[in-house]
């Protein structure tokens, strides 16, 4: 027999609207320490008073209809079998438990506003690795959280980082101790199931000196008629000689607005890599950033953007060089079809102190029909006399000779176009773990179905 909460699909929801009452209720449910409650309220004031950046595309959202917080279950589990049947079935269909068994060091799942499941392999936990929800981390590791939370992305950064700071719930906290190198990735899967939901997860990752980790996140939601909002914040601190790779396969449904702020800080000799797959959402604004603070630090951003029918996918990356001899490579590959709009937006800034730095940006776009759009807005700033910033971009349609060649071998036009697109994206897709690369290719194939004619 179903309980009342499982019939509704949640335990508690705040009434629609981004209000002080909702933020205070959320803070009460989370049993926030005083500093966090105050921070939430300051951030809410900032959110309500801040405007959108002048360059932003139009954001079709009515905040009075967005539910700030939805609690899906009474408590987080580390055993799949204890999850409510509906949630378990959803994640089973997405292949989460299978992935955990086969190739992950740890995995988590967030359903609506809260993490419902988190598990770290025992041998990894023994090495001192912390992999928990942010809610838990605030209570269990308060000194670390207080030191790092909002340091890279303060609430005053932009309207949606303010909203996230006020309304954050769930998300992931990772701490990898000195010298620990994880050979298998950690993963969290995000799911929004309700119409008009807001998901504001907060992720904080600290990779200590000489440590290495690969974190993967995936996102999905079913399609409803009214908009849902995802406004996550991710902060990464990569200490001296550490290495962090953050991979995302974003496949939100087209009614989701994805307005996420992601930033990493690399100290001396550290490496941060963002692998960013943007396939879903109706409007996406996401520009992972790397601040190369330490000398000899490196940061790469590899981004795939697929904009189909009724999608406006605005993505790119930012690199700020502060330390000496820093280097960065940004590669963006975008496709537009069925009237979709793809935009690459990037910023590279080499500060005066960042002597002998070297940044190269390469972004290419493919337009698959005459009703789609492609925009490129890079800004490159150099403030010293011995660094190099290089940007190259090209936009065009599918090479007709390649298409003709494939079709002459008996391949249909649709399949030939799909093969060419997958080949175009492959330099980035191959950087993902095999399972994600396969998933991404499948998703692109599905999106491109019936794109001919």
């Amino acid at each position: 027999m179903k309980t009342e909460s499982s019939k509704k699909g949640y335990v508690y929801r705040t009434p629609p609207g981004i209000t002080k009452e909702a933020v205070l209720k959320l803070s009460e449910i989370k049993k926030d320490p005083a500093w966090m409650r105050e921070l939430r309220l300051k951030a809410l004031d900032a959110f309500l008073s801040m405007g959108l950046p002048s360059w932003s595309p139009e954001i079709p959202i009515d905040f009075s209809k967005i539910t700030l917080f939805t609690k899906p279950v009474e408590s987080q589990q580390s055993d799949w079998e204890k999850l409510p049947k509906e949630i378990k079935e959803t994640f089973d269909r997405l292949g989460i438990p299978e992935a955990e068994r086969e190739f992950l060091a740890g995995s988590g799942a967030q359903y609506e506003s809260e993490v419902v499941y988190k598990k770290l392999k025992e041998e990894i936990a023994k090495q001192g690795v912390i992999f928990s929800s942010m809610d838990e981390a605030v209570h269990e590791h308060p000194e670390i959280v207080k030191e790092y939370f909002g340091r890279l992305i303060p609430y005053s950064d932009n309207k949606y980082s303010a909203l996230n700071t006020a309304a954050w719930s769930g998300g992931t906290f990772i701490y990898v101790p000195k010298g620990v190198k994880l050979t298998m990735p950690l993963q969290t899967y995000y799911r929004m199931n309700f119409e008009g939901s807001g998901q504001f997860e907060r992720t904080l990752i600290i990779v200590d000196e000489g440590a290495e980790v690969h974190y993967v996140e995936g996102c999905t939601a079913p399609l409803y008629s009214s908009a849902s909002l995802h406004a996550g914040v991710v902060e990464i601190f990569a200490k001296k000689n550490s290495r962090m790779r953050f991979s995302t396969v974003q496949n939100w449904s087209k009614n989701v607005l994805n307005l996420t702020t992601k930033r990493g800080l690399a100290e001396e000799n550290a490496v941060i890599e963002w692998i960013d797959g943007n396939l879903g959402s109706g409007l996406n604004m996401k520009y992972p950033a790397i601040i190369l603070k330490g000398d000899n630090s490196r940061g790469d951003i590899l981004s795939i953007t697929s904009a189909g029918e009724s999608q406006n996918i605005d993505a790119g990356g930012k690199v700020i060089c502060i330390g000496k001899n820093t280097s960065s490579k940004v590669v963006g590959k975008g496709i537009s079809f069925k009237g979709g709009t793809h935009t690459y937006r990037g910023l590279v800034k080499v500060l005066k102190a960042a002597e002998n730095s070297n940044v190269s940006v390469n972004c290419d776009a493919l337009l698959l029909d005459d009703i789609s759009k492609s925009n490129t807005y890079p800004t490159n700033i150099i403030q010293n006399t011995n660094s190099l910033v290089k940007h190259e971009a090209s936009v065009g349609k599918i090479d007709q000779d390649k298409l003709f060649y494939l079709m002459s071998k008996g391949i249909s036009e649709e399949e030939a176009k799909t093969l060419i697109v997958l080949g175009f994206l492959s330099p980035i897709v191959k950087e993902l773990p095999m399972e994600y690369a396969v998933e991404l290719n499948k998703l692109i194939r599905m999106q491109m179905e019936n794109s001919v004619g």
Partner: protein
Amino acid sequence: MGKINIEKKEYSGIPADVRVRLLRLGVKLSRTVECIELSSWNAGAGIVPQEEIVLVSFSGNNFISINESKAKTLTLIAYSDAKDSVLNLVSSVPVKRMVFLPADSVALNWMCRNVGKCEIKSDSQKQSQARISVSSVFSSDTEFHIDSFHYEASSFKLSLDSVNYAESKVRAKAIIPEKALGVSCAIDLFSLVEGGSVELSPFIEISNDNIKASHSALARGYDKAELFYLYSKGLSEEEARILIRKNILLRNLPEEEFEQHLERWENELD
């Protein structure tokens, strides 16, 4: 040797197709226009603008310089209805706006300094080829805002090479609308950073798939390998740097026309 005609006209007195194209670019002119007509093969004429708006109509290969101006601000309109024409222009006065209205296979080669905050607008015609090459010494704070508009089957190339000593910004935007099928467009921005700070932003907005578009931006200091090679040939550091700067600023311009002006600027900078 060609002729130069200079006369003042009311806005309504300038050619109708110029007015239509200016309107299309959103350029509104209401003042008296100083019209300079350059017929074929002018070489090295010095012009001193009297009015704020100067329409330079040219055919054939022309070279003019503007090193002083009686006007407080200057809008230059470079216009040609003759195929295969070139306007070579050297300027060392502030230019508020440069409007380029080319016919087929028309080029504007512009070497400038002290340009200040300048807006460049270009309007290529259907099935035409047009090219703008700008070489500039950013010895004082400089801002270029470049917008190019494209029509069916047109080909457009913009290159901007600069040597930067100040706080400078270059934003070049190509807009290729839905109906502009078969457009080919390339934007290349380069800056050698001698000092200060430079910002290069090549933007493209494309609304159809039957196009070929590319852009690039490169900002850097001196290439150490290049310097080393020149030292190995016996050049001093100063000589090597001058040669590299000269190569950068003249690589997209006809060298013989511009070289002596550049040498004079180098001497003045020293």
